[in-house]
Structure formats: C-alpha cells, structure tokens
C-alpha cells in the first residue's frame, strides 16, 4: 500500500487521510457505557457474577432476593467504571492540550497560525527552535545553509542526544521564500510503526522541476514528538498525521501487568469454581432423586405430577445460586482497595524521600506491590542507577606524572598546582584541551557567574575541573572561544568540529590561536582511540599504565591529545572535509574517513580520570538484597572494565578468592559458542562449591548468543546468580528481561535513563530512578524512587508486607465465603435437598460486604515482624519469593479451616436450637452470629500486630453486627422482626456463641501453638526473637541463602586470560548513537591481569565511601 502526498495542495487530500487530531482516548461519551461494560465483562469473574445475577432473576430457582447479588455487582462495576472514566478524562485533557497547540503552516501560499489538530497531510509545517513536531514531517528546508537540523528524539526512543536530519537533495538550497510555493508529490508507504525506516520518494513539480525522483530516508524526516534543537527554523511537509504517525502507531496501552499473586488467586478461584460445579452436580442429582422418591410422599409440598421439561435443571441451578457465594464477590474490590493503599504507603513513606532533591517515592502502578516481595532477579543499569551520574574529576596523568594519587583529588594536588603556577607548557596544553575540546556552552548570568550547559556529564566534569585549575571557559561565541587563564584572556577560533561518534570514540576540534595564527588539532577520546595513534616515538607506556590503574579503581578515563597543524595541511584537509560533509552518499562514513586522515600522530598530553561516584548505600543495598536471595544482573552500556570495577565496589561480585568471573566473548558464532559452553561447564562444576560465580558478556557476544545459542544462554542464565552485561543496547536489555521472564522468574528492572525504558516496561516490575537523566525512566516505570538505596526498603518492607497482607486477605476472603457456603450446603441436607437458603437475603449480602470485609481490610496494617528485623534478616524474604504464604497447600489449610468451622457452627446451632426452638429465623441468626464470632477471632488470631485500628475494626465490627441486626429487628416489615431482641434475651443464645467460639477456636489455637513452638517457620522464630526483647543480632557470618538451582555466593578468579583484539569494534546494529554518549573509559586489554593486586585498594576505597 502506498500513499501519495501532494505537497502544499490545499484541496485534494483533505478527505483522504485523517486529520491531525491525536486521540488516546479509549471511550467517547456515547460509547463509554457499552464499551466499558463489554470490557469488564470480558473478565471471567465478572461473567460469572453476571450469570449468577441473571439466574437470580428467575424466581423459581432463586434462593434469595436477586438484590443480594445485583447490589454488590453494580457497586463493583460502578467503581471500576468511574476509575476508567476518570483516567480517560485525563487522557482527553492531555490530548486536547496537544491538539490545540498552535503551529505555523502554509495555507494558500501564506503562513498561518492554526491549531495542531487542523494539520492535513500535505501541509507545510514550520517549526522554530525547541518546537515539538506536531506530526510526521518530511524536511523541506532549514535555517542551516547546508540543510541540516538537529532534533531530540527522547520521547520517541528515549535517546537524549541530538540527531542530525538533512533536507532531501532535491530541496537543497531552495530559497526560504520559495518554500511557501513549493509543490510536489511524495510517494510513501502506508503508516507503520517502524521508527527507523522511511522509504519514500519525492518528486517536485514545476517550477522546482528536478527530473529525478529523489529518494527519502528516515534521515529526511522529523517524527512526531521530536524537538527541534539548535536550529533556528525548519519546515517540512506533513506525511502522516494524527494517530497514523509512527508514534501514534506504536502507541498503545502498555499491557496490564498481572502479579504472581493475582495469577495464583485466579488459579485458586478456578479450583474453587470446579469444586463448586462438583458440589452443585452432586447436590443437584441427589436433590432430584430425593424429590422423586421422598418429596412425592410429602403431600404438604404438593409436587405436581407432571413438571415441565426443565424441571430436572431447577434443583441444580438452585444449588448453583446457593453456592455462588463460594467465590467471594468482594475479593476484587477488597484487593483493589488494599493495593491502592499499599501504593499510598509507598508514596507516603518518609524513609524513601531523597534528601537532596526532596523527591518522594511514587507508585505509578498501584496494582503490583505484591510482586515486589517476590522478586527473584534484579536487572540494574549502572550509570545513574548505581552511581550518581555526577561526574567528578579526580585524577590525571600529565606527561607521565600522576596527580591526585595520594589525596584522591587532583584539584588539591600540590604538585599540579605548582606546575600550573609555574606555567609548565604540558600542563597548560592539557588544561586548554580540557577546557575547550568539547561542546559545552557557557552561560553567563547577570552576576557574572558562569554556568555550563553540557550534554555529556564527562565534558561537564572536565570543564568544571579546568575552571577550578584556573583555566576558565568564558564564552563561546559563534566560532570564537574565549578562555581565561590566570587573568589573561585567550581567544581561539574554532575552524572545524569533528564530532563524537561511537565508531571513532573520540572528538576533535581544529582551532586557530587568534594571537599567533597557529592551528591546532585538539582531541579527546577513549584510550584505544588515541594511544595507538600517538606520534611515533612518544612514550605512551605510562599512559597505558595510567588508564589501567584508573579503570581498576572504577574511574572513567579519557585521553587528551593535540597536534599542531601546518597551515597547508589544514587547508588541504579542510577541503576534503567540506566535500565529505556535503556528500550525499555515505556521508557519515566519508566524514569518518576524512577525520581519520587528520587524527593521527597525536602528541598525547595525558589521561583524565573521572569518578562517577557510587550512590550512598549502594553496596549495602546490594548486599542485603543478595542475602535476601535476589539475583543481580548489571546491564550497562559502559565498558567491561569499568563495569567490573563498579560491580566489585558495590558488592555485586565478590573479590577473589571467593568469587569467580567467567567471560563470554568471541566475534563469531563459533567462538561465542565455545566460550559459552566453557562457561556453562565451569558453572556446573562450581555450582556445588560455595563460590560466587558471575559471568561477563558484552553486547556483541550477547547478540550472537541470543540469536544463535539461545538455549545454552538460557541455561546459563538460570545457573548464574550474577551477571554483568556490558555494551548492551536498550533493546538487548529488554531481551534479557524477556529471557529471564520466559524462565518464569520474577524480574525487576531498575534504571534511570531513556535507554532503560524498554527494559523497565518489559520487566514484571519496572523501577525508575528519578535522576539526572530526566524523568523518562521514572515515567515509564511502575515505581519511581529517588535513589538506588531505597530499593531495599521498597522490596523488603513494602513488597514483603504487601505480599503477606494480600496472601492473608485473599485466602481469608475465600475462607469466609466458604464458611457460609458450607453451612448452606449442610443445611440443604436437612431441608430435603431442595435448595432452601438458611440465611435471608439481607444477611447474605451484608455478610460479604460489611460483616466480614471490614476487619480483614485492616490487615493492611499488619506487620508480621518489624521493619528492622526484616532488614537484619533479609533471608526472610524467601517466604515471599517462594510463595510460601499463598499457594495451594496454604489454601487447603484455609479450606479445611472453613469446613471445620462450618461443621462447628452448623452442628452446634441446630442442636442447641432444636425442638421447640427450631424456628427458621432464629436458627439462621444463631448460625450467622456464630460465623461472625468465629471470623472475628480468626482475624484476631492471624493478626500479628494489633494497632488501635485493628482492635477497632475487629471488635467494633462484632459490635456493629449486633447493632445492625438489632436495628433490622426493629423494622416490623422485615423478616427478622424482633428476632435479635429475642435472641439477645436468651441465655442459651450467648451460651451457644461461647461454645461455638470454644469449639471453633480451641483446636485452631492448639494447632497454631504447636506449630509455632515446635515446628516454627523462620518467620515465627524471628517473631519470637523480636518479641522476647533485646536486639536480635545474627550469629556469626551470614551465609547467603541459595535456591537449590543456584550457587552460593563468593568473588572473582580468573579462568581465562585471553587475547582480545585491542581494536574494539563499534558495537551493535542499528543506531550508532544508541548507547549513551559516554566517552569510553578503561582499557579493553586483559583486564584480568593484576586484578587481584588492585582489588584490596578498590575495596577499601569503597568502604570509605559508605
């Protein structure tokens, strides 16, 4: 399918394609009700309840008033519909804002300001700097003479760096005035969601006739939601509009996440449903048999001799209705309610407020708190997540001299300061490169203070450090750079900027010293991109050593170099460069090639080392969570070496000899395969030893492993508690999450940047750090926290409590429903299996909705053990991870309990109220109050910590039961008129309640006590320890717990020294810009050598940090 866009044609395409109205709304006012109802009814539970409610309308079979089901059902539906409506209204508001934004377009040859929603396909849209593209545009012109413009695509793909876009060759150089009148046809594919592809053709019409059809690519487009940056204006023709844009097509509600607990509850519901069907069938058959044998003899029932054909169905259906309460209608409402409260507790938590910025934690997704307690794998980003992403210049090595090694801060290094004082030329050059070889823009405020706007945190750190060392970048005006050194102002003219690309891994500036006219090439970049190109003869050994040393310390290293250019050489080169820049084919490659021609024979000035500090509390957090049995994987775009160092310093992997790192590498399929098999073998051998084995893989090998050796890699993933994946792209991160999920592990992904968004959305739980890289991750995430260390509290406190509470609440809901349902079933055996309901409609409805749901709701305040205890014994999380508190066997316990209690209540009620007292309403009330008493005591017994609210809810509810029923008994027209008054006056009633309590709770208490004292779970032991007083310190060193499939923890021995290609190929397929613009650090060379010697130092350093 093709679409033909007539550029600037005011009539023709108007009705063919949709307008630019963005609509994220799910509903309109008209279709809200039917559509919402339809959606709600697509859930099994709701269908079930609707069926029950409809059956109840048939008065022949209904045991109770239909209102007892319709009431709660309508209530539940109203609640969720209101929530949906509110969400949709908010979406409508934000759509409206986007739709009514004003944009400039060309209509009838004149520029006009219209609302964004009125843009039609074929309109020419003008954007100014920092405007957001309202639809997908094909560029026609920009303010740049070379037809370039810069856009930021963060909202589209999460990448924060700027990308260049070019005007198609056919439109190159058209006068801006003429752009109003341009006409042409674009042939493009029908809308799709691929944001990396746009294969189209452009043909201009007279007077811009250009005989050739001009091909268009994604490089010629500005997609919806991109921002125009650093370009005065740009204009383009709308090709896709409204919901047909690439963004619109790929939009779509994220799939609702279902927690493991929810899945378990669904499973249990299914089991109960089957049980119910069996009961109904058995009772139905028995009922029909009884009817045909016994009931025929009972003249007072007056069964007709010939019934209609459906007669056989009536009794089973009656029982179906009678048993329908087995599945508690209130469970969904209760769960939604408590889940939103869990989320609120997270929002409110004072202990998770980031002290620096005051950002509280926030739960965007309110439905998955339980999953936090069941996390098995945490996949974490490095930069900005584990580290602060606040780069600080720490050390440097200038012409062989190490600065900052003693104090840990080069800025305070006396020797360096002296060298600056004395004006050592090497040092001055080094500082000059630090200060100006970048794209940082200084902004001077009115007070004269200079602040810097940098896209890269590394550059920011360098410029700041240079300023502190008296080399201040003052101004960047067009091509003139102004720096101030010790009071003297120096001007440089920027001749060319050779931008950073991840292929070249370096950036260069060609500048002319305005004083003496000398031309210099200033370069900074990754060591492997600089040192090999040093001028022959220069000693680079110290630099290599410096790089190695720094990266062992987990510092990010950059090499600075320069070269003086002869004027001829420059001019000759600059011609080639200009040509390459304006080339139409393979521009990028050709530019790189030209750059190569000048970027050589460097005089290496030195190495900088920048520290990306670990966030506070990261090592403890990881340590604690690992003790809790959670496996950590680190996925980073950074270098292997840096990643490993950071991993070491934050307890991610243990140092030698406890730990062992296994490397998976290789450039080809076979190499990767071999290395993978070797690692797997080692893993399997060591799995019995108490060793902490981790594997390290880089993006390239990962790509191969995932594509060709998926099975082996999956096996590895299951075996390995720890992994470090370096140089991975956002989509690979997501793939890894997917892989772990496919092995049925609960995954949590945590990250801070746009490149983590995919992984965050993919994981069972996405946690975003509202950090320096903006809020994209936090917005896409289910939870956002200010600092990594809050993860501990999020999981161990909030996740764990949520899981425990939901486990209790859901099972309890089934318990109470089963209890009353069993009583009904028992009663049917003494009522001729005819399906009589012992309880009246009001009681049945109120039982589920009021009497029993309020006490259990306060279980959201229950804490089995204190927060501190959990933090001290994170191993206890195992109970949540393994789902020990909610599974078929615990559920069987509750099932048995409800059966037992039903027997107790029923047997005692009918025997104590026999003969002359066996009045229907009274017996029903006795049984009901028996249930209420028991459930109050069951909640009390299962509550671990009583706050005032719990007492209020449990005992207040018991009291409220009597008050409500006394009130109901005061209404003459109600069926139970005076019943409660009568009962409350009878001593036998109270004696019956007491015996129900004694007989019902005694065995339960005895059993619980026995288990608690003689077969205690770890939780019980902690409770006992906690409450017997005194601090509970763990004895000795704590052996982290491992699941049987996992290996126990411990650090880093080296299995394979390997020869690796020093030239590290640029990684990864599609977008060269996709990894974060981190200028490389560390060496790619054998990082395993001499590791051990350095470990101790890095370890102690790290301890200081905390």
């Amino acid at each position, binding site marked *: 399918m093709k679409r033909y866009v007539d550029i600037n044609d005011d009539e023709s395409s108007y009705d063919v394609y949709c307008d630019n109205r963005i609509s994220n709304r799910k509903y309109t006012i008209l279709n809200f009700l039917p559509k919402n109802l339809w959606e709600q009814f697509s859930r099994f539970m709701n269908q079930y309840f609707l069926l029950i409610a409809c059956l109840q309308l048939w008065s022949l079979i209904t045991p109770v008033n239909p209102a007892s089901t319709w009431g709660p059902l309508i209530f539940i539906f109203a609640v969720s519909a209101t929530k949906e409506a509110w969400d949709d209204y908010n979406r409508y508001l934000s759509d409206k804002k986007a739709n009514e934004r004003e944009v400039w377009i060309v209509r009838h040859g004149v520029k006009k300001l219209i609302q964004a929603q009125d843009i039609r396909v074929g309109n020419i849209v003008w954007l100014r700097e920092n405007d957001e593209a309202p639809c997908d545009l094909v560029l026609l012109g920009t303010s740049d003479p070379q037809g370039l413009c810069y856009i930021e695509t963060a909202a589209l793909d999460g990448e924060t760096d700027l990308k260049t876009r070019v005007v198609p060759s056919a439109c190159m150089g058209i006068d801006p005035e003429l752009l109003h009148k341009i006409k042409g046809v674009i042939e493009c594919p029908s809308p799709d969601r691929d944001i990396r592809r746009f294969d189209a053709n452009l043909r201009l019409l007279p007077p811009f006739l250009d005989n050739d059809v001009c091909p268009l690519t994604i490089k010629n487009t500005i997609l919806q939601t991109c921002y125009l940056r650093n370009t005065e204006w740009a204009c383009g023709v709308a090709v896709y509009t409204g919901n047909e844009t690439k963004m619109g097509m790929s939009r779509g509600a994220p799939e609702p996440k279902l927690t493991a607990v929810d899945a378990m509850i669904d499973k249990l519901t299914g089991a109960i449903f089957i049980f119910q069907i069996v009961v109904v069938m058995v009772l139905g058959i028995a009922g029909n048999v009884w009817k045909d044998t016994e009931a025929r003899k009972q003249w007072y029932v007056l069964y007709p001799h010939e019934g209609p054909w459906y007669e056989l169905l009536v009794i089973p259906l009656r029982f179906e209705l009678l048993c329908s309460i087995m599945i508690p209608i209130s469970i969904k409402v209760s769960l939604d309610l408590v889940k939103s409260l869990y989320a609120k507790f997270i929002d409110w938590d*004072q202990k998770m407020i980031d002290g620096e910025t005051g950002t509280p934690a926030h739960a965007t997704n309110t439905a998955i708190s339980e999953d936090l307690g069941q996390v098995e794998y945490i996949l974490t980003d490095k930069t900005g997540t584990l580290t602060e992403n606040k780069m600080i210049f720490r050390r440097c090595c200038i012409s062989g001299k190490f600065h900052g090694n003693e104090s840990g801060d080069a800025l305070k290094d006396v020797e360096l300061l002296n060298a600056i004082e004395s004006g050592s030329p090497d040092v001055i050059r080094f500082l000059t490169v630090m200060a100006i070889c970048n794209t940082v823009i200084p902004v001077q405020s009115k007070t004269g203070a200079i602040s810097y706007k940098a896209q890269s945190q590394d550059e920011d750190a360098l410029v700041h450090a240079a300023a502190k060392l008296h080399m201040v970048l003052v101004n960047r005006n067009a091509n003139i750079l102004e720096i101030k050194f010790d009071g003297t102002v120096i001007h440089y003219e920027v001749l060319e900027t050779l931008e950073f690309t991840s292929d070249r891994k370096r950036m260069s500036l060609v500048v002319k010293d305005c004083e003496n006219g000398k031309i210099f090439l200033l370069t900074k970049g990754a060591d492997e991109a600089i040192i090999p190109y040093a001028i022959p003869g220069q000693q680079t050994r110290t630099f290599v050593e410096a790089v190695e040393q720094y990266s062992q310390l987990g510092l990010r290293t950059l090499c600075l170099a320069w070269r003086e250019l002869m004027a001829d050489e420059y001019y000759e080169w600059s011609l080639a460069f200009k040509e390459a820049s304006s080339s139409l084919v393979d521009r990028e490659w050709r530019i790189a090639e030209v750059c190569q021609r000048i970027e050589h024979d460097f005089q290496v000035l030195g190495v900088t080392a920048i520290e990306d500090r670990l966030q506070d509390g990261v090592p403890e957090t990881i340590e604690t969570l690992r003790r809790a049995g959670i496996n950590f994987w680190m996925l980073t775009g950074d270098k292997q070496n840096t990643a490993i160092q950071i991993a070491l310093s934050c307890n991610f992997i243990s140092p030698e000899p406890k730990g062992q790192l296994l490397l998976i590498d290789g450039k080809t399929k076979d190499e990767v395969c071999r290395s993978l098999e070797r690692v797997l073998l080692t893993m399997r051998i060591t799995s019995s030893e108490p060793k902490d084995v981790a594997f390290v893989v880089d993006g390239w090998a990962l790509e191969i492993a995932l594509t060709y050796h998926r099975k082996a890699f999956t096996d590895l993933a299951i075996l390995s508690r720890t992994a470090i994946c370096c140089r991975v792209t956002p989509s690979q991160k997501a793939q890894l999450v997917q892989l772990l999920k496919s092995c049925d592990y609960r995954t949590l992904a945590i990250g801070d940047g746009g490149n983590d968004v995919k992984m965050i959305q993919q994981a069972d739980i996405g946690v975003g750090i509202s950090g320096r890289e903006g809020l994209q991750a936090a917005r896409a995430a289910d939870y956002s926290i200010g600092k990594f260390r809050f993860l501990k509290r999020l999981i161990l406190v909030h996740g764990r409590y949520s899981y425990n509470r939901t486990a209790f609440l859901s099972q309890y809901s089934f318990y109470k429903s089963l209890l009353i349902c069993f009583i009904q079933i028992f009663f049917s055996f003494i009522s001729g299996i005819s399906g009589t309901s012992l309880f009246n409609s009001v009681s049945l409805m109120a039982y589920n909705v009021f009497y029993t749901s309020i006490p259990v709701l306060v279980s959201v305040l229950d804490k089995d053990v204190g927060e501190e205890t959990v933090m001290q014994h994170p191993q206890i999380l195992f109970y949540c991870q393994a789902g020990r508190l909610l599974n078929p066997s615990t559920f069987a316990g509750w099932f048995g309990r409800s059966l037992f209690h039903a027997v107790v209540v029923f047997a005692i009620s009918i025997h104590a109220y026999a003969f002359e007292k066996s009045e*229907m309403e009274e017996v029903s009330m006795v049984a009901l109050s028996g249930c209420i008493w028991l459930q109050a005591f069951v909640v009390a017994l299962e509550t671990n910590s009583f706050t005032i609210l719990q007492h209020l809810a449990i005992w207040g509810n018991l009291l409220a039961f009597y008050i409500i029923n006394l009130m109901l008994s005061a209404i003459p027209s109600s069926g139970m008129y005076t019943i409660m008054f009568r009962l409350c006056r009878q001593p036998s009633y109270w004696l019956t309640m007491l015996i129900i309590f004694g007989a019902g709770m005694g065995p339960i208490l005895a059993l619980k006590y026995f288990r608690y004292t003689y077969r205690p779970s770890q939780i019980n032991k902690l409770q006992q320890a906690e409450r017997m007083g005194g601090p509970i*310190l763990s004895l000795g060193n704590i052996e982290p717990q491992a699941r049987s499939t996992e290996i126990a923890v411990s650090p880093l021995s080296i299995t394979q020294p390997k020869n690796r290609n020093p030239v590290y190929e640029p990684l990864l397929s599609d977008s060269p810009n996709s990894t974060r613009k981190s200028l490389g650090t560390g060496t790619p060379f054998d990082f395993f050598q001499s590791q051990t010697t350095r470990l101790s130092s890095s370890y102690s350093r790290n301890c200081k940090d905390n």
Partner: protein
Amino acid sequence: MSSPTLPSSSGAPGSADSSAVRRNSKRPKYSKFTQQELPACKPILTPRWVISAFMLVSIVFIPIGVASLFASRDVVEIIDRYDIDCIPASNRTDKVQYIQSPGDKTCIRTLKVPKHMKHPIYVYYQLDNFYQNHRRYVKSRSDQQLRDNSSASDVGDCKPEDMINGSYIVPCGLIAWSLFNDTYSFSINSSQNLTVNKKGISWKSDREHKFGKDVYPKNFQSGGLIGGATLDPSIPLSEQEALIVWMRTAALPTFRKLYGKIEQDLEENDTIRVTLGNYYNTYSFNGKKKLVLSTTSWLGGKNDFLGIAYLTVGGLCFFLAMAFTIVYLVKPRQLGDPSYLSWNRNPGWH
C-alpha cells in the same frame, strides 16, 4: 504545611528537610498511620500464655456445662408418641387410607406424671420427618396478605394454593393450607378437667404486626383438596394463634410447636387422660407425631446438648492445657533464639 506535624524524633529523613526539601510540596504528610508506625501490640503464642488460656477456658466451661446439664435435668418432660397407637389395629396395614377417610378418629391416651411439674406446663406437638423448611413449602406464603386486608390479591408466591375458582384464598399458600389439625383435650386423674390455655402461645410481635386484625380467612380449605385444619372465617388472623404458631416455620425436620399452656402444677403420679383427635396425615411420609408436656428452665426445654458440649470442650481444653504443660516441661524450648534460624544454623532450608 507538612512540617508542623513532623516530630523531631521522626528519624533520618526528618533532619534533611530543614534545608533542601522545603520547596517540594509533594512531600507527603507525616503521620504514624502513613508511616505504618502506629503503636502496636504484638502478642506471641508463648507456652505460658497458651496454657493459661486453655486452663481458663476449661475452668469457665466445665461449670457452665454442669449448670446447663442441671438446668436441663430439672425440666420434666412427658413425651407420648401416638401416631401408630391411635390407629385401630385393623387399619394399620393402610394407615394413609385410614387417616384420609372421614369419620371419628378420637383416641384416648393416658399419661403418667413422673415428677412434680410446676406450672406453666407447655403442651407441644412434635412432628418428625416433616420438612417445613422445604424450599417449595417455606416460600409458599404471602406475608403481605396476612398483614393487610387490602392485599388479599397478593398471592404470587402461594401457588398452587393461591386461588380457588377465581377467588383468592386467605391465608394462601402451602404452609397455611397444611395447618396441623390434631386436637387434644386433657383431664387429670380421670375426672378433673385440665384446661389448656391456647391464648398467648404465639409471639406477641406476630400477633400485632405480622397478622392483621382485620384479615379474615376466606375460601380457606374450600377446594377439593383439603390439607389440614380449617379456620373460623369469623375470627381475624391475629387471633388464630394456632395458625400463627404454625406459620413460624421450623428450620429442622423435627420440631415442636406450642399447642397450649397448662396453668396449674401437676403432681407426681398424676394420671392425665388425653382425648385426641387424630386427623393430621403424617403417615404417607412415615412421619411421627408426639405429644409433649414440658416444664421450662432458664435455658429452655430439656436439651442436654449444651451441657454435654460444654463439658466436652472444657475437658478437651483441660486435656490440652495439661498436655502442653507436660510437653513444655519435658522438652523445654527457648523461644526466640536466633541460632534457631535456619540460615544461622546451616545452609539450605530444612
């Protein structure tokens, strides 16, 4: 806004807010509830606590059980099953045929008072195997009609006893239709007439609110199929106490309903002669009919169940308390020793 509620003892983050945080209005409010820090009492099941709880229960329950049993034993009860004996021996092969045929079905029973019975003595009839709680039966009534004269047409639930020849039956439905119609009259020591008071046997609330003073039986038992008793059309329903009692359906298939009260004491060895009219058909479903004379206690009628249940549970609790004590003494166990934690003891879960 949030700071005043922030006590200085609120812990680590509290100290930070003085400096940087003030600007953030999103900052959540501090309260013990939002921080889940409400003071809580955390009881645990210590042996002492549990054993004393069980002891306490047994100490409370056993006396209650004894008292209940005494109360139940104090009640004097005379039960006389008459459904078979009241059928002439010649008719016993086909009891249903006998009971359905017209004719005098008077039957004399003689009861002996085993013990002194204080007044009031309640006269019950007891039916066994009679399902007043059958769904078809229990629904077949119209409370509206019973209460209100103008609602005579409200017979929707009463099928098949709702109408006869196009006019409504009052009271309609199977329950009323099957009203018990055996009659008893008593004489004591073969001469003295023993009056049975049939007033005040129903619930006052029923007489006043459930059965209308101006509702009179209409077309009752006038169809071809006669169920049970007939009603005097000139007496309003609120005074037809036998009907009111009958309409309080029983939850169990064995039940007693009050027939009347004897307002005088009966001495030991008194003989009571009961002249009963045996009309009610329980024979087709093998139901039993019994005549019961019973005194009452503070717990109600003669029913040993509560007493036995209390003694059983109390005894069981005593036994448990003893057992737990012994186990506790024989195998004492230190609660809350962290060394019991499995991860402190050995790797791997037991």
